[in-house]
């Protein structure tokens, strides 16, 4: 998308091996401008480099991804975060997304897909993999679409958003989902961003309770 100027990325992970592995996987559309191995170092590097995107590990000694986002988000709102984790735990994933990450990908993701996800996050879109889509569908299930009239509209998904999420959970890319629903890819991105906003802003008590109580993936 933005082939002219590569996206500037900072890698945050407490394992040197993972950082070098990720660095090797990333394509030309991305240039790694810094690395950090813990929360304090991450905040320092991000503040110094002001990257476009931070690739963030969820679990780290000294606080983890949520702490990094809290430490940087207020002073540098333009920096976007993409969570990259092996964790399957719903509360980890939902927690870091609610803290402000614009997406979540697993470490099993391949290089081109990761590059694509970074570029997408840099342009302001949200990145939902199948697992995150499943979590969100689960978290927003129950009272469903039609019910909950008293609730804020942030507290329920529209039928279209639900459809899009289900396709993503089935392993569809945004482009494939767009073809399937006869929509433009841009529209899919809009839906996903709106789901992300709901996930981050919803006050739904069930959401918080779900995220903490549920360890089942």
């Amino acid at each position, binding site marked *: 998308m933005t082939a002219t100027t590569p996206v500037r990325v900072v890698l945050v992970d407490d394992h040197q091996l993972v950082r070098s592995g990720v660095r090797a996987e990333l394509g030309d559309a991305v240039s790694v401008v810094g690395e950090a191995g813990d929360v304090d170092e991450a905040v320092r590097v991000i503040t110094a480099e002001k990257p476009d995107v931070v690739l963030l590990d969820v679990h780290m000694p000294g606080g983890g991804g949520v702490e990094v986002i809290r430490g940087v988000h207020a002073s540098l709102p333009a920096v976007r975060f993409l969570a990259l984790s092996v*964790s*399957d*735990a719903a509360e980890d994933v939902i927690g870091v997304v609610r803290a402000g990450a614009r997406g979540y990908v697993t470490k*099993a993701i391949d290089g081109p897909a990761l590059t694509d996800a970074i570029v997408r996050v840099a342009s302001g879109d949200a990145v939902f993999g*199948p*697992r995150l*889509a*499943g979590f969100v*569908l*689960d978290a927003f*299930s129950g009272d469903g679409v039609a019910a909950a009239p008293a609730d804020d509209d942030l507290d329920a998904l529209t039928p279209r958003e639900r459809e899009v999420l*289900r396709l993503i*959970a*089935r*392993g*569809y890319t945004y482009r*494939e989902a767009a073809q399937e629903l006869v929509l433009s890819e841009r529209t899919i991105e809009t839906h996903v961003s709106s789901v992300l906003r709901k996930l981050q802003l919803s006050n739904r008590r069930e959401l918080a309770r779900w995220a903490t109580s549920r*360890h*089942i*993936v």
Partner: protein
Amino acid sequence: MSDDGAEQSTSRSPLVRRTDGRMVAGVAGGIARHLGLNVTLVRILFTILTVNGIAFLVYFAIWLLVPDDTDDGSGHTRLRRPREVVRAVIRTRPGEDPHRRQKLLGYLIVGSAVGSILGAFGLHTGTASGLPLTIAVIGAGLIWWRAPEAQRAQWSSDARRYGSRLSGRGSLLIVLGGVGLVVAGVAAFLAAHDALAQARAGALAIGATFVGVLLVTGPWLFRLVRELTAERRARIREHERAEVAAHVHDSVLQTLALIQAQAGDPDAVRRLARRQERELRGWLYAPQTTAAEGGAPTFSGVLRAAAADVEDTHGISIDVVVVGDTTVDDAVTATVAAAKEAMVNAAKSSGAPAVSVFAEVTSGGVEVFVRDRGRGFDPDDVPADRRGIRDSIVGRMARHGGTATVRSGDGGTEVALNLARKVTA
């Protein structure tokens, strides 16, 4: 009599409270069994002695201190609130004396009658000291009954910080109430014996001494408590660490050793690594599903197991995302079997390294999607003798009132299974 009961001899059966055929808490029954006496005799003795309060104290003390014969130590902790004590006395449990309440009433009447007669003859020995002492012992009982729980609540306060605060405060109130009762009882006892004035001087001396001792030993006590806490924490941590280490050794290190031994065979290595990853994930992220559910399988569990099986057999990786869950019946089992067949097909024919499985359980039914990004095929082109899709997927779903749709093209293959039913999730 109660003293005899407290001294246990080896030839006798140990003193426990009886839970079968009991009147109040099984104390009299337990003593009768322990001493080899008639239970009614023991009860009547208790009833008569209760009139001056002494047997009441003994009864209450034995209730608190002697375990019941189920002997799981949960006898006291089950009584969380004062009204549950009342309920525990009144409620009839299975296996109890059928005429329990009538008999209880009878003993009460006997007790009151004996009390009245003794009172009429001016023989009441203890109203002056018995009643206040009874009050004091009830208070002490409340404290003793409540203290361990209050302490436990404090220990585990981190774990259940969001638990009911009211119940924590309730236990504090009960302990404070107990203290109040003890003070009132002792004061009344002293007043009844005209010893209050002396007691005041004594209390002052005791109080001053206590404060003095506290001042001297305070820092030491404080440090002791802190050290004990730290030690307990360290012990818990050490225990956890040992458990993790054991697990890592049993699974991860063994697998790494196997991988090194088979380094020449990439398929075997991938399979081993994938299986280990799955096991470790299951252990890390879903410990309570395996532990809590015990034998009862759920849809998500069965589906994951099927995917794991295909992974192991065919050496591909299958990502399973499940939304919602349900219990397993014949139709669900058939759906999982059909899904497994679809996974096997994808593993064998598509050439794709990974398969995505998405399953959703809604109020309307169960849906499963099995998708790969390999080379697709034309379902109409499949030779008639290849029965996999027709029988194992489409036919199987149809037999259980479901549908199966196969879509295949350049972007891969997707098998969609739909089982419409009322789900009791």
